[in-house]
């Protein structure tokens, strides 16, 4: 068989079961690709021995006819997921050499179904960022490059964030798929920037247990893959009730893959006029194209209004830092991670946290402490939570009026180059999440699907937003968009280093 890293996850699954390929061959091909791609800095920890051991076990199971749903499929795991016995950093210095003695529920679900881990993927520190530039271990380089004449520009393009290692690894064919997490857009924005597919499921669909917490009322796990079908396959294994997370929902997980190819005839798609903001002509044209694709597939297009959209991002920058300041209080140099010596215990805490947290994390923890502090709690935090109710109500009303899903752009632009955004003003970077953050605020499922390439040769994505727990409809609609859109040709490996 030709290079097995060029298979989709679904194709690799079928090839393994048909014994056209062994899990060991498939895994070795990925390990080799990872070793040659260190210039991208997508992996923080590589686990080739563990992967090959698991692959041998998978081959034995396939030989016995006991293949599980994801048997022998090599994946990357965002380094926000705790993995038993494998260093977990959250891309922060403060976790130091933290090696969990337990496994996150979502990754455990993937291993239960036979998947195997290639290593841990880079991210923005504590998932706070939109470009993967806040990682304490250096930025991730996107496999995509800007077009320049007949060739490519030298500028290093960001893979989005916070799941930048996940999006880069999948787009560079270093893994068949990757886990990611999304608090304000951290699955969908990097997927849009790299021509991949990323779904943030409904809040409560996946367990958050064992995933390093950022903002607990917004955080959700989800996959990044190269096709819509692959995302459906991965999410089915990742999702499900977990008694260890009281916000995880006890409802059956449908066979999402069955939704791929289902007719979207008669589905009502809402187009929110408030999203036509500042994206520019290229984004608006892509959006119009997406509308046309869904209309051609038989969907009914209706204009809707989500009047509180513009307040979502500012409200998010109160709620998320508030929850982060509380969640990150645990990094105190006592139970795990970095410890700096101090003259007393308070001094030890302060020095440890000053040394351990990067600039963006420090900023957010401080904003969070401020908006929760005496005298400001009502003016900032409570008001933001009320606005969150209004944002959710906007969606509730659209769905009650018969809308099945909402179509929007995924990001306001194609990917930018390292150092281009946010250096002087942190808010400039925050604006990346303007189309995605409403979805987290309302707890809804959202999927990013590639729509084509911009004039600069970089990918552009569309976003579909669904009713709570109706991921299946999103997969049907996303598959319709995927088959109508120009096929994404992932970049040739210009990053390859001679071994």
């Amino acid at each position, binding site marked *: 068989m030709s290079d097995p890293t060029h298979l989709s996850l679904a194709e690799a699954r079928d090839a393994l079961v048909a014994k056209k390929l062994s899990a060991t061959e498939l895994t070795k091909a990925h390990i080799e690709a990872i070793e040659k791609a260190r210039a991208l800095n997508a992996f923080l920890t590589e686990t080739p021995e563990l992967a090959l051991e698991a692959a041998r076990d998978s081959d034995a199971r396939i030989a016995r006819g006991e293949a599980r749903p994801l048997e022998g499929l090599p994946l990357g795991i965002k380094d926000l997921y705790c993995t038993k016995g494998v260093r977990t950093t959250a891309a922060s210095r403060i976790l130091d*050499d*933290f*090696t969990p*003695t*337990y496994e996150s529920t979502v990754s455990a679900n993937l291993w239960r179904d036979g998947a195997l881990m290639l290593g841990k993927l880079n991210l923005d520190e504590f998932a706070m960022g939109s470009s993967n530039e806040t990682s304490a271990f250096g930025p991730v380089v996107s496999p995509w490059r800007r077009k320049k004449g007949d060739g490519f520009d030298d500028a290093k393009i960001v893979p989005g964030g916070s799941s930048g290692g996940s999006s880069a690894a999948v787009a560079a064919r270093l893994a068949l798929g990757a886990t990611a997490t999304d608090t304000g857009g951290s699955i969908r924005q990097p997927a849009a920037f790299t021509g991949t597919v990323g779904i943030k499921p409904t*809040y*409560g669909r996946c367990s958050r247990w064992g995933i390093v917490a950022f903002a607990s*009322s917004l955080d959700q796990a989800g996959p990044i893959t190269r096709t819509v079908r692959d995302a459906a396959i991965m999410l089915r294994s990742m999702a499900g009730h977990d*008694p260890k997370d*009281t916000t995880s*929902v006890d409802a059956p997980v449908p066979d999402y893959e069955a939704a791929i190819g289902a007719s979207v005839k008669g589905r009502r798609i809402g187009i929110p006029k408030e999203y036509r903001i500042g994206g520019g002509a290229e984004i608006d044209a892509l959006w119009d194209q997406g509308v046309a694709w869904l209309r051609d597939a038989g969907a009914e297009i209706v204009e809707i209004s989500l009047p*509180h959209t513009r*307040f979502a991002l*500012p409200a998010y*920058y*109160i709620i998320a830092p508030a929850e982060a*300041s509380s969640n990150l*209080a645990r990094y*105190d*140099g*006592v*139970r*795990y*991670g*970095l*410890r700096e010596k101090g*003259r*007393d*215990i*308070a001094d*030890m805490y302060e020095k440890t*946290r*000053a040394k351990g*947290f990067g600039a963006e994390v*420090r*900023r957010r*923890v*401080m*904003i969070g*402490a*401020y908006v929760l*502090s005496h005298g*400001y709690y009502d*003016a*900032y935090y409570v*008001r*933001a*939570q*009320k*606005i*969150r*109710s*209004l944002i*959710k109500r906007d969606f509730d009303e659209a769905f009650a009026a018969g809308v099945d899903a909402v179509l929007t752009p995924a990001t306001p632009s194609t990917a930018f180059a390292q150092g281009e955004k946010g250096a002087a003003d*942190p*808010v400039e970077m*925050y604006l990346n999440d303007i189309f995605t953050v409403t979805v987290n605020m*309302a*707890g809804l499922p959202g999927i990013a699907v590639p729509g084509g390439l911009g004039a600069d040769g970089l990918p552009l994505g569309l976003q579909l937003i669904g009713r*709570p727990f109706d991921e299946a409809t999103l997969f049907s609609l996303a598959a319709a968009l995927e088959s109508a859109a120009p096929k994404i040709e992932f970049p040739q490996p210009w990053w390859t280093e001679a071994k």
Partner: protein
Amino acid sequence: MSVDQATVRRIAHLARIAVEDQEVERLGAELNAILDFVAELSSVDVAGVEPLTSVLPMQMKKRQDVVTDGGFADAILANAPEKDDHYFVVPKVVE
């Protein structure tokens, strides 16, 4: 509302993050940029709106109030920067 240098120091202490004197001005500017960005929220009419506490109308599951887990002292201490037997060691708190 904007923060002055004394407020920056107060917030940093609340957050238990040491800040150097030369950082205070820059941090203040960054925090004010974020506070300016969120300022438009004060224009929203929120009269009679309940703050959102849960995105889904779900009943939280309850379980019997019994011990279901435990006995992992070694695992819990495995990553401690300083430990003694089954204790975390910290600088002296009480003189």
